């Protein structure tokens, strides 16, 4: 562990999540600044060194995949608290409760999204302390800003950071609801579902794109039924 590792870690703390390309150039940059050995392709080894120091602190730089693009990301996660308490940095109890309700809505939905209307409605059912409509809206934009949620046209999804950090929590808390991607075997929140009621497997959109690429008659990899969804292009 030297200053190049420390600078890398500081930048990870500041950004919380960095895409693979960014992480690779950050690795080179940190090594250049501190005149340390830079070996292209050894990013994961470099990160392992940092992780060995972070382990006693129950923190880790963890790799994960974006459900939107299929790109790889690195996130600094806190393993001591794989549940929502992780976000304790500045969120009040009722705000955390609303975030949990939002996760409930997103994970419980078929396509992994929740509309702002549904979230606002669920704010009425808070048991801790009610949130006004404007407060809820403000909270939602903060959650987006802090990279816990993504928003697009009034629809909210779990961010890559959120999924990387909370995967263990989501798998446990939503055991009966959450599915594992048939292709990459990670949990799948957003994706396409086989319409055969006996099957019902789920595949991430980028995994769908990769798997069915160049197949004119897409079939479910589990039950061989026709795959009725539009194949996204990534």
């Amino acid at each position, binding site marked *: 562990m030297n200053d190049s590792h420390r600078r890398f870690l500081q930048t990870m703390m500041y950004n919380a999540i960095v895409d693979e390309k960014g992480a690779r150039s950050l690795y080179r940059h940190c090594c250049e600044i501190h005149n340390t050995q830079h070996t292209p392709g050894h990013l994961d080894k470099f990160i392992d060194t940092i992780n060995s120091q972070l382990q006693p602190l129950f923190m880790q730089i963890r790799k994960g995949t974006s459900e939107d693009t299929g790109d790889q990301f690195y996130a600094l996660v806190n393993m001591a608290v794989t549940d929502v308490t992780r976000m304790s940095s500045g969120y009040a109890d009722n705000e*955390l409760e609303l975030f949990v309700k939002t996760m409930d809505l997103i994970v419980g939905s078929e396509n992994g999204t929740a509309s702002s209307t549904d979230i606002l409605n669920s704010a009425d059912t808070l048991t801790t302390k009610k949130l006004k409509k404007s407060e809820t809206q403000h909270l939602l934009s903060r959650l987006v800003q802090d990279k816990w949620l993504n928003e697009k046209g009034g629809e909210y999804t779990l961010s890559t950071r959120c999924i990387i950090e909370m995967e263990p929590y989501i798998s446990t808390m939503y055991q009966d609801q959450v599915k594992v991607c048939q292709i990459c075997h990670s949990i799948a929140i957003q994706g396409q579902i086989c319409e055969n009621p006996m099957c019902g497997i789920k595949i991430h959109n980028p995994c769908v794109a990769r798997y069915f690429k160049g197949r004119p008659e897409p079939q479910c990899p589990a039950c061989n039924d026709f795959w009725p969804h539009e194949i996204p292009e990534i």
Partner: protein
Amino acid sequence: MTQRKRLSNTPSSSQAKRQSGAFPAQDDDDDVTFTQPSSTQVQRGLEKLTPAQVDQKTAEVVQFFLVKAQKKIPIRRADIVKHVVKEYKNIYPEIIKRATQTFDKVFGLKLVEIDTKNHLYILVNKLDPVEGDSPISAPANPKMGLLFQILSVVFMKGGVVRENVIWNTLKKLRVDPGEKHEEFGDVKKVVTEEFVRQKYLEYVRIPHTEPVEYEFRWGQRAEIEVSKPKILEFLGELHEVDPKSWSQQYREAHASQNSSQPSSSSSSQR
């Protein structure tokens, strides 16, 4: 998160209770209940605990600091004891010692008690800021350039400067405190509130002035985190002057260097 006892990450063990351990902001009760334990008390306390317990408590304290330090606001000992250290307060000095080592060794940060009377801590970066092109946004954000300008002026003018001087300097750099800046927003607020809260600047009313006037000084964080020789070097390059020609500032910069500057090379190597 301070309330959690579970520290393993296997999904089966995350029988995640939906409890929220949001750190309360700041509370008013002060430090009176806490007296620094003696080294024998610490020793005796440590004997009753397993190394794993002490490690875990240290990890919690480190995380508490990291969360709090994101906003660069000083952290009160009273809050650390109350929200994290709790029943381990008899070994408080040992935990702070270990947290300090961790910040140094792992994060390149220095834990500094800036106020030994009110027991306030800040985390100071031991790594030198890098100008310009980090491939992804680095902790040294654009506001730091603004701050650096102000600190330079204050330092060159002998340590205290009336606010008008600062505002005029900034206006010359096309940063008008009266207007909304596209990058900094409300400049006056950033300078007189944010930088002050973060202990980079002191902004104090000058007594007996009508209308009311304020002056700027370096804050405690700046004294520790910002290198005066670097400022001179920077200004020297800017004005094409040998920094030594500012003899008084040069002497001061190199005199204070040893006492308060954390050296970035002293971090332990693994």
